[in-house]
């Protein structure tokens, strides 16, 4: 008797749920490579010719495949171009010919050895993404072997009817041949969330589960299975009840996705009418597109370190201006908050020789560094001011820990304005200046700082680290890094109050601000502007729309009465599960995907 509802666990690589018939692709042959020695120059020449023939045929095959790629996957056709290049690569082509010639090996064995050498070389590569390209070499290798053996490559398109494809591994080229109408979903034994295959599945919106050990052995062709790309679960031979459960779940997910997509263009307003600004954190000008796509109300944190760290020499005013202008102009009329340089002296390669610090987090960095290296700081401020002529720019100083730092920063800004006036450049003379609140001293001094700042932005990543004395990269203590720690919540409350008293806005731009779980508490504490990774925006906007400010205030109040972080987490998790069951069911599995 067939067992019902057997569950296998893999890794969800492309969200969605599908029920269908499994089609298991047999593992490719070629594990056994025959060895045959060649005895005459004629034999060697013939063998080389046979290999060249296989290369030519593989070239034809790849070109044909490229031609046949379905339209919605055109942008992935470069994978086949890549395979064409690899096919001609000396390490594969010349080396195989050499082995045939010098070691009298048959073509298969020579090719096998050439490929093994490349594999060994790639094993030494440290960067996982670059190392992953060995899969492409393997794909070419397999095609060549298929040609040499006269079997050709296995066909994938001949599924006959729509099915869920189960394979040990799907090469990118094979994945591009899948058309959404034929392939309902897929399951592979190998691969991770970032593999080509996962990317393409996401593009096609086909549910996929990868990294499922023994999938091709456990699953039988023709079997009915459910693929849940959200949780990574695969259910074999589901019974009636299980089918109904998943059909409902599938409906819910479809609706959830549709609502997210629809909602991200609309403003984030609580159910009782309080508008919350939801902005994007960016690092590169190119990321503006993403911010706009996901409905950002502006850029709440533009990190500016990249231009300084990527090259040996310091960026010029023009280079900085060009990048800032691009971002500001693309976002206009929406605001862009530019954070001035936030690095330590040790990060600069040359021309500044600062010694390595024992404790960089507590060392010469951010505004401290800028106030010490005034020339660098002035250049950046000039570029920011010039960009302010192209849209709404705000500037903020990171790691403010005293009133003096804020004053000196502002004074320097005034001096730079004079310079620009002399140069006849246009800029916004009323540029707003903010202080990042990320040092406990700044929280304590928030009332004083608010007198001299036009806005606050709470940088939670550093604030939590300094307030709790936790380095979250340190595995020994990482679990003590707790955004909802009673101390952190009280600090946020204090900063918001200081801002209110002085009539300035208080934003938040750490990772905490993009985590749906924390949003109601933050709203309840009075934060009215949240800046986050653009991908988090649709979900955060949705949470905001579903809750009223009154409810959020009640939640924050309740959370503040709890005395330990465990109690707070417990309360918030339970409350959010109760209020937003559908969001938290899906949010977790969507965390690493773009939701729409």
């Amino acid at each position, binding site marked *: 008797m067939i067992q019902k509802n057997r569950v296998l666990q893999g890794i969800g690589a492309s969200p969605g749920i599908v029920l269908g018939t499994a089609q298991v692709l047999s593992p490719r042959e070629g594990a056994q490579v025959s060895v045959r020695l060649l005895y005459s120059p004629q034999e060697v020449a013939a063998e080389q010719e046979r290999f060249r023939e296989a290369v030519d045929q593989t070239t034809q095959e790849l070109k044909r495949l490229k031609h046949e790629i379905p339209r919605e996957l055109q942008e992935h056709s470069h994978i086949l171009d890549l395979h064409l290049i*690899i096919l001609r690569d000396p390490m594969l082509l010349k080396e195989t010919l050499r082995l045939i010639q010098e070691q009298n090996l048959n073509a298969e064995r020579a090719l096998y050895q050439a490929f093994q050498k490349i594999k060994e070389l790639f094993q030494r*590569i440290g960067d996982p993404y670059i190392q992953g390209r060995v899969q492409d070499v393997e794909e070419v290798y397999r095609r060549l072997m298929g040609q040499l053996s006269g079997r050709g490559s296995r066909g994938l398109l001949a599924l006959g009817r729509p099915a869920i494809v189960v394979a040990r591994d799907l090469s990118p080229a094979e994945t591009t041949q899948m058309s959404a109408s034929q392939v309902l979903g897929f399951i592979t034994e190998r691969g991770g969330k970032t593999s080509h295959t996962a990317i393409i599945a996401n593009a096609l919106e086909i549910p996929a589960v990868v990294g499922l050990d023994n999938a091709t052995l456990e699953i039988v062709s023709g079997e009915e299975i459910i693929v849940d790309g959200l949780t990574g679960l695969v259910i074999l031979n589901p019974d009636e009840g299980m089918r109904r459960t998943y059909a409902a779940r599938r409906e819910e997910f479809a609706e959830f996705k549709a609502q997210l997509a629809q909602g991200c263009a609309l403003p984030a307003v609580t159910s009782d009418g309080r508008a919350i600004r939801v902005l994007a954190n960016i690092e590169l000008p190119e990321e503006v597109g993403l911010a706009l796509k996901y409905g950002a109300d502006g850029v709440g944190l533009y990190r500016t370190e990249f231009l300084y760290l990527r090259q*040996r020499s310091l960026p010029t005013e023009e280079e900085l201006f060009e990048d800032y202008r691009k971002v500001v102009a693309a976002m206009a009329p929406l605001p862009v908050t530019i954070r001035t340089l936030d690095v330590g002296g040790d990060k600069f390669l040359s021309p500044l020789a600062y010694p390595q610090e024992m404790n960089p987090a507590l060392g010469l960095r951010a505004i401290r560094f800028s106030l010490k290296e005034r020339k660098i700081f002035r250049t950046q401020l000039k570029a920011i001011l010039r960009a302010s002529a192209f849209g709404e720019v705000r500037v903020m100083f990171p790691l403010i820990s005293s009133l003096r730092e804020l004053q000196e920063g502002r004074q320097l800004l005034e001096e730079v304005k004079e310079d620009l006036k002399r140069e006849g450049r246009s800029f916004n003379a009323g540029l707003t200046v903010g202080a990042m609140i990320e040092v406990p001293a700044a929280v304590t001094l928030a009332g004083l700082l608010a007198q001299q700042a036009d806005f606050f932005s709470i940088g939670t990543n550093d604030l939590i680290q300094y307030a709790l004395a936790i380095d979250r990269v340190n595995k020994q203590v990482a679990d003590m890094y707790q955004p909802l720690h009673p101390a952190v919540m009280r600090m946020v409350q204090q900063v918001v109050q200081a801002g209110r008293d002085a009539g300035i806005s208080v934003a938040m731009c750490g990772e905490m601000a993009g985590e749906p779980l924390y949003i109601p508490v933050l709203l309840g504490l009075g934060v009215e502007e949240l800046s986050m990774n653009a991908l988090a925006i649709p979900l955060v906007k949705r949470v905001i729309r579903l809750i009223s400010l009154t409810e959020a205030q009640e939640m924050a109040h309740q959370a503040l009465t709890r005395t330990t972080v465990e109690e707070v987490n417990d309360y918030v998790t339970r409350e959010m599960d109760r209020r937003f069951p559908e969001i938290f069911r899906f949010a977790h599995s969507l965390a690493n995907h773009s939701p729409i």
Partner: protein
Amino acid sequence: MDQKKEKPPVVQKELWVENRLGLHARPVAKIIALAQQFEGTAITLEKDGAKADARNMLSILALDCPQGTRLVVKAVGPQAREAAAVISGLFARKFGET
């Protein structure tokens, strides 16, 4: 000493890998496409003493160059200057990526 024949020009330039994903397959494909235009000019990429032919994808990939890697492009031959300039331009534009 008599100069039997003129030495071909040699041009070296420092390059930085600035795109986020590093020298993965697509950027390397672009390097190769450019390098192939300069027939008769040898072009190599060097990283900490390790060398790769600029027309050889696998050897460039094997150099293992994530974002932030420093490389030197060395071109030897009649079109050395142009070749080095074009390749360093490609790096400076981050291969059209982010």
